[in-house]
C-alpha cells in the first residue's frame, strides 16, 4: 500500500502511534490518555475513518443526568415541596401568595408544589382559601428526590444505574433543553468504539519508520522565531493541494489593457498619439473630410446632435474658406468639387464625434512631414444598441504623411498591422469606398480562429481633404476594427460587455 504519512495531521499521528490492533479506541480513552479535547477526538476519528485507518466496531446510546444550578440550590435549601410542608407545619394556615412571598418562590412553583402535596393528601386548602397541613409526613417521592439530588452532587449518573422508582422520578425532574428551570439536565452520549484496521496498522508502521511523532511544528510564529524554539523541532509538511480561499486583487480592466497594448504596438511602429474633444462640429466631423453636406454619403454617419451648445461660435480660418471653396468648386485642389452652395450655418452645428477620422483631419493642420500619427478614440453613433452596436465605442486609426508614401507603402503598413496587431496568417486587399480617400482599400485577414474578416479600412486621403488643410504631401489614412479583436481577445461575443458596469463580471474577466 502506498501511504503518504507525511500529510497526516498531528492528531492522527499521535492516535495511530498510541493504539494497537484489536484494542478498543474511544473518545474517553483519547481524552484521558492523550489529553485530547472532545472536538479533537471527533476530528481525528473522522479523518482516520475516511482514510480507512480506523473502523467503527460498536456504537452505544447512553443517557446521563447532570445536576443543574437549580438542583444544587434545591439540594441545599430543599425542594419547594419540602419547604412548603415545613413552613406550613411551623406557621399554620397561609395563603398561597403569602407562601410565595415568604419562601421567595415563583407563584407557579408554589402552585404546582402545593398541588402535588394536596394530591398526596398531605396538604389541602381550607375554607378561608389558606393552605394547611393535613398529613404528618412527606410523600415517599420526596425521599427519592432527596437521594437523587445527593447522588447528583457527586457527579452525573447514568440512567441504567437507577432502579425503576428512581427512573420514574428522574423523568419528572430532568430536561434535555431549557434545563435551567429543572433540577437535572439530560445528557445523551453515544459511545463509539473504533479499532485500528490493517491499513491503519500499516500506516502506524510507516509513521514509526519515518520517525514522525505528531509533535512537529505547525504555523511559524513570531515567538518561535524570537525564542529559537523551531531549531529543536521539525516543521510539519502541509497538504499542498488543499482548497484555497478567494482573493480580490486590484486589477486593470482587461479591455483597457488590450487598448493599451495596441497603443504600445503603434508607438513601437513609430506612431505618435493624438486625442481630442468628444464634441465636434459638422465642419470637422464631415466637411473637412470632403463629405458633401447633403449627399447620401453623409447618411452612413448618422450622428447625435446637441440640444444645448448646438453650434460652435466659429470655424477656424483659413480652413473654413478653403474647405467651403473645395466643396463648391474644388478650390485649388484640382477637383471640380461637389458643385453646391456650402452651408455656413450647418457647418457650425455640433455633434458627438461620429468617426475617429475627425481627429486625423485636425491633426493634418499641425502635422509634420514626414509624420505618423494615431488615435484610439471614443465615437458616437445613432444606432440601436445591440450585440454589435454600441451608443459609443472605440475606433483606432491614424495617418502617415510623407513625400514618398503611396499605395504600395499603404499595403505594407496594412500588412504590418495585420501581422503585428491581429496575428493574421494571410492578408487580402480589396477596393473599398470611403468619401475621404481615393483610392480606398479594405484589408481582409485570415485569422487562425475567426477565419477571413475585414480588419479595417484605409486609403490615401483625397487632395480635397489634404490641400485645404495645408498639406501638399500624400497622406495615408487607416482605421482598424479593434472591437472585434478585443472581443476575441477577451473571449466575449457582445460589444456591450466591453463597457459592462457589472463589478463581478469585470473582476473575473481574463484576457487571452
Amino acid at each position: 500500500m502506498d501511504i503518504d504519512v507525511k500529510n497526516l495531521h498531528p492528531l492522527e499521528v499521535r492516535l495511530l502511534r498510541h493504539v494497537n490492533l484489536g484494542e478498543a479506541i474511544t473518545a474517553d480513552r483519547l481524552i484521558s490518555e492523550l489529553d485530547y479535547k472532545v472536538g479533537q477526538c471527533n476530528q481525528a476519528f473522522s479523518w482516520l475513518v475516511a482514510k480507512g485507518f480506523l473502523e467503527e466496531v460498536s456504537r452505544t446510546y447512553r443517557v446521563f443526568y447532570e445536576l443543574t444550578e437549580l438542583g444544587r440550590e434545591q439540594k441545599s435549601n430543599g425542594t419547594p415541596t419540602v419547604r412548603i410542608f415545613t413552613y406550613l407545619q411551623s406557621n399554620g394556615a397561609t395563603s398561597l401568595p403569602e407562601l410565595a412571598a415568604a419562601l421567595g418562590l415563583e407563584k407557579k412553583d408554589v402552585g404546582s408544589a402545593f398541588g402535588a402535596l394536596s394530591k398526596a393528601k398531605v396538604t389541602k386548602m381550607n375554607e378561608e382559601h389558606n393552605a394547611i397541613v393535613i398529613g404528618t409526613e412527606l410523600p415517599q417521592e420526596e425521599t427519592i428526590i432527596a437521594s437523587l439530588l445527593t447522588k447528583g452532587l457527586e457527579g452525573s449518573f447514568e440512567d441504567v444505574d437507577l432502579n425503576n422508582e428512581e427512573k420514574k422520578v428522574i423523568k419528572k425532574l430532568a430536561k434535555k433543553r431549557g434545563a435551567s428551570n429543572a433540577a437535572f439536565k439530560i445528557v445523551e452520549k453515544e459511545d463509539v468504539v473504533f479499532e485500528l484496521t490493517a491499513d491503519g496498522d500499516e500506516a502506524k508502521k510507516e509513521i514509526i519508520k519515518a520517525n514522525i511523532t505528531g509533535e512537529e511544528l505547525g504555523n511559524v510564529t513570531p515567538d518561535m522565531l524570537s525564542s529559537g524554539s523551531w531549531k529543536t523541532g521539525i516543521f510539519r509538511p502541509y497538504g499542498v493541494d488543499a482548497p484555497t480561499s478567494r482573493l480580490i486583487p486590484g486589477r486593470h480592466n482587461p479591455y483597457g489593457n488590450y487598448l493599451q497594448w495596441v497603443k504600445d504596438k503603434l508607438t513601437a511602429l513609430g506612431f505618435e498619439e493624438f486625442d481630442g474633444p468628444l464634441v465636434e462640429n459638422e465642419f470637422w466631423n464631415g466637411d473637412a473630410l470632403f463629405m458633401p453636406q447633403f449627399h447620401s454619403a453623409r447618411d452612413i454617419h448618422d450622428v447625435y446632435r446637441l440640444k444645448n451648445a448646438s453650434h460652435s461660435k466659429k470655424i477656424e480660418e483659413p480652413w473654413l474658406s478653403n474647405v467651403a471653396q473645395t466643396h463648391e468648386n474644388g478650390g485649388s485642389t484640382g477637383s471640380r468639387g461637389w458643385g453646391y452652395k456650402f452651408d455656413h450655418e450647418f457647418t457650425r452645428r455640433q455633434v458627438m464625434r461620429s468617426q475617429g477620422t475627425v481627429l486625423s483631419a485636425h491633426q493634418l493642420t499641425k502635422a509634420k512631414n514626414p509624420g505618423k500619427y494615431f488615435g484610439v478614440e471614443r465615437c458616437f453613433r445613432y444606432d440601436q444598441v445591440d450585440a454589435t452596436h454600441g451608443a459609443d465605442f472605440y475606433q483606432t486609426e491614424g495617418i502617415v504623411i510623407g513625400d514618398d508614401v503611396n499605395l504600395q507603402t499603404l499595403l505594407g503598413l496594412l500588412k504590418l498591422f495585420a501581422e503585428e496587431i491581429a496575428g493574421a496568417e494571410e492578408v487580402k486587399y480589396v477596393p473599398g469606398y470611403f468619401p475621404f480617400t481615393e483610392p480606398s482599400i479594405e484589408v481582409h485577414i485570415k485569422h487562425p480562429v475567426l477565419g477571413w474578416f475585414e480588419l479595417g479600412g484605409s486609403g490615401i486621403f483625397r487632395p480635397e481633404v489634404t490641400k485645404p488643410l495645408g498639406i501638399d504631401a500624400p497622406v495615408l489614412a487607416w482605421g482598424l476594427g479593434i472591437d472585434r479583436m478585443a472581443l476575441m481577445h477577451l473571449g466575449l461575443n457582445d460589444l456591450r460587455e466591453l463597457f459592462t458596469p457589472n463589478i463581478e463580471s469585470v473582476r473575473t474577466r481574463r484576457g487571452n
Partner: protein
Amino acid sequence: MPKIETKEKSFFNYLGKSYSDDELEEIFPVAKAELDDHSEGVIKIELNDTNRPDLWSAIGVARAIKNYESGEVTEYDFFSSKEQSVDNEGRELQIHDAPENRAYSIGFAVKGHVVSDDDLLALIQSQEKLCFNFGRKRKTIAMGIYRSDLIQFPVHYQGADPDKTSFQPLGMDEVLTLREITKKHPKGIEYGPIVENDATFPYLYDDNGNALSFPPVINSADLGAVKVGDDALFVEMSGPILKNLILAASIMSCDMADMGFEICPVKVIFDSETEFGKEITVPYYYQEPISCTMEQIEKTTGVKMSGEKAVSSLAKMGLYSFYDADDEIIYATVPEYRDDFLHAADLVEDVIIGYGLNNFTPEMPHAFTMGRLTPAEELGRKVKDILVGLGFQEMMYNYLGSKKAYIDNMEVSGEDYIQIANPMSENYEYVRPSVIPSLLESESISAHATYPHKIFEVGKIAYLYPQDNSGTITKNSLGFLAADSLMGFNEVSSMVNTLMYFLRVEYKLESLNEDNRFISGRGANIISGGKKIGIFGEINPTVLENWGCGMPTIACEIDLDEILSL
C-alpha cells in the same frame, strides 16, 4: 450601404454565364460589392460605394463584371449630347409653370422587349434604390414608369392647383384631388410632406389630359400601372436637381438596354433656361472628359506602368481612354452611367482597380518617425497603476447615459450638462459630466459581488463650458469609489493622500457643504495651485437610496488635465 437582391437566373443571364459563390466573392470587389447571401436561387449583394448608383442594380453589377473580365467597354448609341441629338421621333415632354421646389422632369421611352416577372422586379428595385438612396427618399429624385402605348405625346409636367387637379391613384378606387391624395393615400401620407407646403403640386399628364402621376407621390391607376407582358414603357424622373435626374435617367436607360429594350429618346422642353440649355434630348450625355498624368499614377501607386497598361486597366473598369505619349497624359471618357470623377485621383483609383490590387507589392514606409503617447495617456497609466496598487478594480463605461442616472439620482440640477437633441432612447440622452454616476451604477447592480467594492475609471467627461468655441469642454478624469460596511471619510482621505503623494501633487482640502452628492460636512474640495482639482467624500444616503445601494460608499473625482497643467 445599399443592398440589392436578384434572381440567380437573371443575374447569370446578364453575366452571360454562371459563377460559383467562390468566384462571385473573388470578382465582386471590382464593383466594390460583397456577396451577402446566396440561397434558394436568390443572390443578395451589398454595395459599398455610396457614390456609384449605377451599381445598385443587378444589371449594373453584371455590367461592371463583364467589362472587367472582357476588358471591353460597353457602348451605348442612344445618348444625345450638347453637340448632337438622337432622333426623338416626335416624342416630347414639355414643362409648364414648373412647381417651385421641383422644377425639372425628364424622361425616355423604351420598346421591343416583353416585361417578364423578373424584369418587373428588377425595374422596381432599380427605381427604389435610385429614389431612396441616390434620390434621398424621393426628395431629389422621384421616378415613374408608365405604359407608353397608352400615352398621347407630348407629355406635360406642370405645377398644378392641388385642390382642383384630380385623378384616380394606383391602389385606390376613387378619384381624389392631389391634396386629398397627400392626406388619404398611404404613399401620400409617406411622401406628401415633400411637397405639401408648396403653392402648386407636380402633375404629369399626357396630351389627352390623362393623368400619368402626381410625382413624387403616386402614379395613376391606368397609365401608371405597369405589368408583366407590357412591351412599351415611358420612364420619367422629376426633382429639383437636373443633373441628378439626367444621371438617374442614364443609369435606367443603360440598365434597360442591357435588359433587351430599345431606347426611344424623348425631347424635354423646359420652361426656362437650364445649365444644359432650354431643351435636351434624353438620355443625355453631359459628363466632361477626365485626365491624369502618368506621374500622378506613379506617385499614387509607387509603380511605373506603361500608358498602354493604364489604358487597358481603365477599359476593364468600363472607361474608354487614350494615352497621349508626348505629354504622358491619360484622357478618359466617363461612362454615361457614372458621375463620380471629381478629381484625377478618381481616375487613378480606377487604374489601380483595373490593374489589380494584388499586382502591387507591399512596401514599408522609409522615413523615421518617433512614436509617442500623449501626456494625458502617460499620466492616466501612472494613476491607474497607483489605484490598482490600492486594491481598486479598473472599470470602463459608456459615455452616454440617462437623465435619471446623471441628474435625478445624483440630486443635482444638471444645468451645465450636455444634452443630446436626438437621443435614440432616454437611456442615452446625456453626455457623462462625471465618472461618479457611472461608478454608482456599478455599485447599484453589484450588491451580490463580494465586498469591499473598490472600483475606478480613468476616462473622459464633458460638460458645458461657455468660454470655449464649442461651448463645451472634454476632460480626462479619474473617478474612484469604495463601498463597504466600514467605509468613510477617513478612508477616502487616506486614499487621496496616497495618490497625491505618488503624483507629487501638493494639495489642501476645503470643506464642501453645498454638494448634494455628498453628506454635508463630509466632503472636501481638493485644492492645488490655487485651483480646485478634485472632490471627494461620503456619498449622501439620499443618493445611495436613489441608486438602490445598501452599503456605505465613498467617492472621489480628480481632474487629470488640471494635474497635467500644474
